[in-house]
Each structure stands twice: as C-alpha cells, then as structure tokens.
C-alpha cells in the first residue's frame, strides 16, 4: 500500500469491566474499500465510534494524511472529512431530501435559507452519485434504500474523504444492494476511502479489497480479500476466548415437547420498513432441553422470542404448547401458558430501577402472594425473596435495597428469580449474560443448567458462540429472519455455526 489516508495505530479503549479494544490498528488507502468484520461484541462498534469521534480512545494514535488528529467529537471528525453512516439513519423524516442533506449547513444568508441554492447543490450531489432523487421529496416518503442514498449524499456534501458504512446492506433487497455497490465503487474511483462493515460474508468478496477482522477487541488480521476463502474469513472471526466457561454436561434424555412453533412469519409493514421479518420458522423444544439460538445482530432472534412471548404481533403461524394450539396475544397470556422471557436489555425491558429488589422480584407473581387477591402479603413476599436469595446466591445488602445498586450479575439473577417464582414450563433467555462479569456468567450458566434439569424447556439466545456451544443441547442458527440450520451439540463447532449464521443457504451448501 502506497499511502494511508486514515491510519489508526494501537488503539485501546476500556469500559468498566470490559476491554473493548486492545491495540487495534487499521489503515485505509485512498480509493480503497476496506471491509471491517467480526462477531457481535468483537469491537467493531467501538472502533467505528472512535473513528467518528463519538468515543475517545484511551491510548493509540489516529493519523489523517500523515497528520496526527484528535477526533474529540463527532463534529470534529466530520469537519475532517470522516463521516459515518449508521445502520439507524440520522435523518429527519418530516424534512425534505435537500434539507436533510444540508442540515445545519443550509446555504443562505443572515439566517434565511436560499432554497434555490439548496436545491441546486443537492441535485449536483445526486448527479455525482448517479441517482435520481427529488430534492423536495419528504424523507418519510422514501424507501429504505433511498433514505440511505440521502445519507450518502449528505456524506458527500460534507466533502468527506472517509465514509464509514455500518451494515449498509442489511435492510436492502438484492437489486438495491447492487445499486449501492455501484455507488460505492464510484466513490472509490473518486479517491474516497470506504470502510464497509457487514455481516454478509458473500458480499465481502464482491465489494471489498482488503478486510480487517476483529476478535475479542483485538486485530485478528488484515488481509487482501483475493487471498482468502470464505472459510478463511470465518476462521479469523471465530475462536473468541471466554474464561471460566461453564460447560453443561451432556444430557440425552429429554421430556415431552414443551413448545412447538410452526410456520411463524412476520411480514414487514409499510410503517416500519426497518423491522426485522420472520420467515416461516418452525421448531420444537422439549422439557429439560436447552435450545440455543445463534445468529448475528439483526438475524431476528429477539424478534422470534418476542413473537412467541406475545410481546410483538406476528402475521401467520402457530404456537403449540403441550398439544394445544394457543393464541398468545400478550405477555400476560404467554405467562398464563407457562412461558417466561428474560429480555436482552435488562435496564430498559426488565428492571424497575426506582424500586427495591423485593418489588422487582415479586412483580410477576403478586397474584400468588396477595391476600384475597388484593393486599400484598409482605411476609410471603419476603420469604419468596429470601428463598431465591439463597437458591440463586443473589448478593444484596437487604431485600429493600434498590435494584439500581446491585451489580449486573445480581440484577440478572433477580430477573431470573422473577420467572422461576412462576414455575414456567418454557423460559426464553435473550443474551442472559450480556454485561455481567465472568464469575456471574458462570453462575448464570449453572442456573440455566439447573433449570433445564428441573424440567424447564430453556431457549437461550446468545451472540457468543462459546456460550451457545457450552450450554446448548441443540443449536438453531438464524440469518435475516430465517432458520438456516440445526446443529446437535456433538456436531457443533464455531466454523460451522459461523458459516450458517453468515452465509445464505445456497452459498453455505456450495
């Protein structure tokens, strides 16, 4: 490589308890399309945020054109020509294309917008991109692909030199992807550096020249794409370390089928084009079994869990519990059918931060500890809390302590206890060990194992392959809202799973 446009040297970034990036280096040449790959949690997002000025690295240097730069905030990064297009667009739907392209930088004088100039300059950029967009169209009326074009137009309008695209193809159809690739190649010939983040490995060979793979916050290598096979890339991505991992001992005998999902589908709606769809999903899970669901972000795992639990509606398909077809339309009904859900985002979806441990633990089972169904029996409530405090080893000062002041691991145990108190038949746990320390992780794993042994059917969604492989009796893989594979515990290895998670069915076979 002759000359680096952007050069990141030994970047490290720590968050409390997590080493997000550890000595990561990355170089982009002008006119290069550089792929950035890695599993969920490998550090891609953190690296993007550092390049876009949203985070500051703890150590390491960033050079632009051989000059050391400090990207102290997103505005500074943009001023230097580094523009990030996030997966969730930063557009104002109620404004026009032109206004969005030049938002905050509208041409004009003394506070008045020069609409003619705004229109003209927007057109000159869309011409340069070779796309047709009415500058006066409202963004809310555009398709996802067109909205993405607006984002790219905005990036160009800032005279950007580096464009970081975070999973730009995830919401696009095949035809739209090709159009995007054409534009990206055009930008390349204009000398821009493109950083292209994707989960779709088949795209890597099509669009990228070089790739950098991150793993566990470290460089797992930078290679020319032509030197790599898809299998090589997968090998670079997998193999995340995970300390003190609990391994569930093999179980061979399971009980009856606890839950069957048959042909579950969710079509998109015009109002929410970004919604992850579910296509014709069928599977069963037996009592005493831990069924792992693996997939990368956006594969539809959480959406599947929420649909089964009645938290989101689905369009067709059925859910069979025992041997009865059930109509679950709300979490309330799911709970009545013996299903529980530990959601992926503890703070937003599970905890009542203003309340104490006691209230957080008992909230779903108040009916069983209420006198005449009305008054909360505080004695019964306390004994419930004490029972789970011992059984799950929940460390707290007292049941009256605010849950906010517990560690992540102990908060998660309280959420697990909330469901265990209901004695569920099926428990869905979505990223059960996200954001908790290693020791607590092992404890949660042991708990899940114990729950399965007591006859609960456990469905575990996780982005961490070692966790999936260490805990599951059987593993389903998902990609883009479809089930792409089913792997038994004995047959599971990381390469195989990663292949199923990242490749479309036809490529995986080939």
């Amino acid at each position, binding site marked *: 490589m002759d000359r680096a446009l952007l050069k990141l040297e030994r970047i490290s970034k720590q968050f409390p308890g997590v080493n997000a990036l550890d000595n990561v280096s990355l170089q982009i040449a002008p006119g290069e399309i550089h792929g950035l790959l890695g599993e969920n949690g490998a550090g891609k997002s953190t690296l993007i945020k550092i390049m876009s000025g949203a985070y500051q690295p703890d150590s390491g240097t960033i050079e632009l054109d051989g000059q050391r730069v400090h990207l102290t905030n997103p505005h500074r990064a943009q001023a230097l020509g580094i523009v990030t297009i996030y997966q969730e667009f930063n557009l104002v739907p109620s404004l026009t294309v032109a206004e969005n392209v030049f938002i905050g930088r509208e041409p004009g004088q003394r506070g008045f917008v020069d609409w003619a100039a705004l229109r003209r300059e927007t057109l000159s950029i869309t011409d340069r991109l070779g796309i047709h967009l009415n500058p006066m169209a409202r963004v809310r009326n555009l398709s996802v692909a067109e909205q993405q074009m607006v984002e790219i137009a905005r990036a160009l309008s800032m005279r950007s030199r580096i464009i970081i695209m975070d999973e730009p193809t995830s919401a696009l159809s095949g035809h739209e992807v090709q159009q995007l690739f054409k534009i990206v190649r055009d930008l390349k010939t204009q000398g821009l550096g493109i950083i292209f983040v994707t989960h779709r490995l088949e795209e890597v060979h099509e669009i990228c020249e070089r790739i950098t793979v991150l793993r566990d916050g470290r460089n797992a290598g930078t290679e020319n794409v032509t030197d790599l096979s898809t299998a090589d890339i997968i090998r670079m991505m997998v193999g995340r370390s995970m300390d003190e991992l609990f391994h569930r001992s093999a179980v061979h005998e399971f009980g009856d089928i606890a839950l069957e999902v048959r042909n579950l589908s969710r079509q998109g709606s015009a109002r929410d084009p970004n919604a992850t769809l579910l296509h014709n999903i069928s599977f069963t899970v037996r009592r005493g079994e831990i069924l792992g669901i693996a997939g990368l972000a956006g594969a539809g795992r959480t959406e599947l869990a929420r649909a089964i639990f009645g938290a989101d509606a689905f369009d067709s398909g059925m859910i069979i519990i025992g041997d009865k077809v059930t109509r679950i339309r*709300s*979490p309330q009904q799911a709970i009545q059918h013996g299903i529980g859900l530990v959601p992926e985002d503890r703070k937003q979806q599970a905890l009542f931060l203003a309340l104490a441990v006691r209230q957080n633990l008992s909230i*779903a089972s108040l*009916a069983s500890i209420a006198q005449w169904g009305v008054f*909360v029996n505080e004695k019964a409530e306390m004994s419930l809390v004490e029972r789970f405090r011992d059984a799950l080893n929940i*460390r707290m*000062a007292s049941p009256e302590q605010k849950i906010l002041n517990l560690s992540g691991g102990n908060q998660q145990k309280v959420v697990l206890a909330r469901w265990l108190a209901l004695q569920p038949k099926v428990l869905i746990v979505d990223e059960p060990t996200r954001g908790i320390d290693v020791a607590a992780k092992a404890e949660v794993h042991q708990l899940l194992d114990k729950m399965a042994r007591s006859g609960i059917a456990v469905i575990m969604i996780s982005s961490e392959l070692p966790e999936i492989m260490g805990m599951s009796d059987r593993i389903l893989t998902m990609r883009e809202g479809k089930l792409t594979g089913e792997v038994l515990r004995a047959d599971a290895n990381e390469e195989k799973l990663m292949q199923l998670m990242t490749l479309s069915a036809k490529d995986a076979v080939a």
Partner: protein
Amino acid sequence: MNQAQADAPLLSRQVYGASLISILSRFAPVIFLVILMIVFAIIEPNFLRVNNLLQVARQVSITGLIAIGMTFVILTGGIDLSVGSLLALAGMTAAVVAKGGTANTLSLGATESTGYGVLAAILAAIAVGVIGGFIQGTLITRLGVPAFVVTLGGLSAFRGATLLLSGGGPIAGFDDTYKWWGQARLPEPEGIPVPVIIFLGFALLAHIVLRYTRYGRQIYAVGGNPEAARLSGLNVKLILLSVYVIVGFFAGLGGFVLSSRLGASEAVAGTGYELTVIASVVIGGTSLFGGEGSVLGTLIGSILIGVLTNGLVLMNVSPYVQQIIIGLITVLAVGFDRFVKSRRSI
C-alpha cells in the same frame, strides 16, 4: 476471598450514599412545611390558632381531594389537565339532580327543590367524574393520544358542557342535607370541617391502596418502566385507564363537595384548579416522570400550598405575589427532584 467479601465495602457505600440523598429528598417537603409554619407563627401569632389551621385544612380539602387522584395519574407518568372543568361539570350535575332541573332555580324558593335528594346528587356527581375519566382514559390508552392533549381537550370540553347544562347562571338554594357535606363540622360548631374529614379519609384509603395492594404495586411498576411491566405480564393499558377513572372519581366528588360548601354550583367553579392540584402532587415529591412518589407526599404538598397561601394572606401579601411564589416553589420542587435523580444515576 469470595465474591461476597469483595462486594461488601462497595455495597455498603452505595447503600449509605444513596440513602442520605434519598432521605433528604423524601423529607424535604415536610422539613420545608415545618420551617414555613415556624416562620409564619413568629411573624403572625394568629397563624397557629386552631381555628385558623382548620380554616387552612378546609381550604385545601377540595384541591387536596383531587390531588389524591392526580397522584395515581402522575405515578404512571401521566397528567390530567381537565380536573377543574370536570369538577365544575360534576358540581353542576349534582345541583341539577338535587334541584330537579335548571329551570326550577328561579321559581322555587331558596331551599326548596323538586329533585332526587342529596344521595342521588352525590352519586350523579361521582358518575360524571368517573365517566369523564373513563372517556379520557380510553382515548389515551386505545388511540394512543398523549394524556396532555386528551385532557387539554377535556379542560375545554367539560367546561363547555358545564355552561350548556347550567343554562347560563349559577344554581343555588339547597337544603341542609346537601349543604352538610361542605359546611358542617364534626362535632358542631367548633369541630373538624366535614370536607377535611372526607379529604383525610380518602388520603388514608389511597395510601393503603398504593402502599399495600397489588394494584398499588402495579401502578409504581407501570410508571417506572412500562415496557418491563408489560413483559412482566401486567395489563398496562388497563392500569393506565384505571388511574384516569380514579382521578375522575375525585374530581366528581370534589365537585359535589365544593357545590355543597358554597351552597351553589357555578359554571366557572374550579377554574385553574389543575395547576394547584398538579403543584400539590409535584411539591409532595411525586416524580412527573412516573414511578416515584406517595399520597403522603401529596398530603404534605397540599397542606404546604394551603399554609403558604394562608400565611401570606395573614401577612397581607398581595394575591398576585402569592401566585408568583407558588409558581416558583413548584419549579424548585421539580428542579430538586431532577437534581436528586442526576446525583443518583452516577
């Protein structure tokens, strides 16, 4: 060394650190009330006379009654701006039922009526409040219109309905059984005013509901984190609907009590009450963001506003300045709430 030991110092620091601030924030309204009363007592010795204090209590009893219901609403993160208008509509309805129509007002003697009696009047007032609350709650939970907008509409619509019903003028001239609820004292003649007893009785009941029942617990949960509440199997929409019915109940009851106390129902009754009511709840420490607060706080907040007004009157401060002071204190109370929250999130 095991994890529990390692956690111990950290744990205790968090517990004590948090509790110092939370104790301060919890008792801030009480502390402020006590200081205020001492100051007024020094400046104006008449302030502490029993009769004056009962006067204060009677003055706050109607807005206080509604503030109890408003506490439920605000605990869920909602708001109800229509209470003053709903109160007027309920009070007017009570008068119409008691008198047997609006047209009779002039033709009948001062205390005569051809109506259906005081019990029917009370039930009618409460029914109006409950139905008004139910309609608003339904619009909020089923159509997803923000509570602020729905009840702003109610603020206007209920007032209009009251004017229509009244036929333009006030309705006055009730018999003693009607006026007993607003004007009597127990025991007569120097005892506790009946409205105060009603206010305190319902405050106690509401406190028990919020503190000790399943329903009360669910209100805090829905206000604190509606998504988590839904995923925990709570019927969030029903709970949200119920709090607007509850505040409607109190507005209806308050409408009757006010009519009884004044011996007349006027179409302009309760104008601006929503501000006093919301201020009482907020000054009492209930968070406008939902999930935190109590009826006891609202009780203190109501009394605080009453004491402040009364004390300022005794000191001959202009009513205009009184309004400025109450406005300032409301803003300061919320500012304090935010300050405590920001400290805690560190």
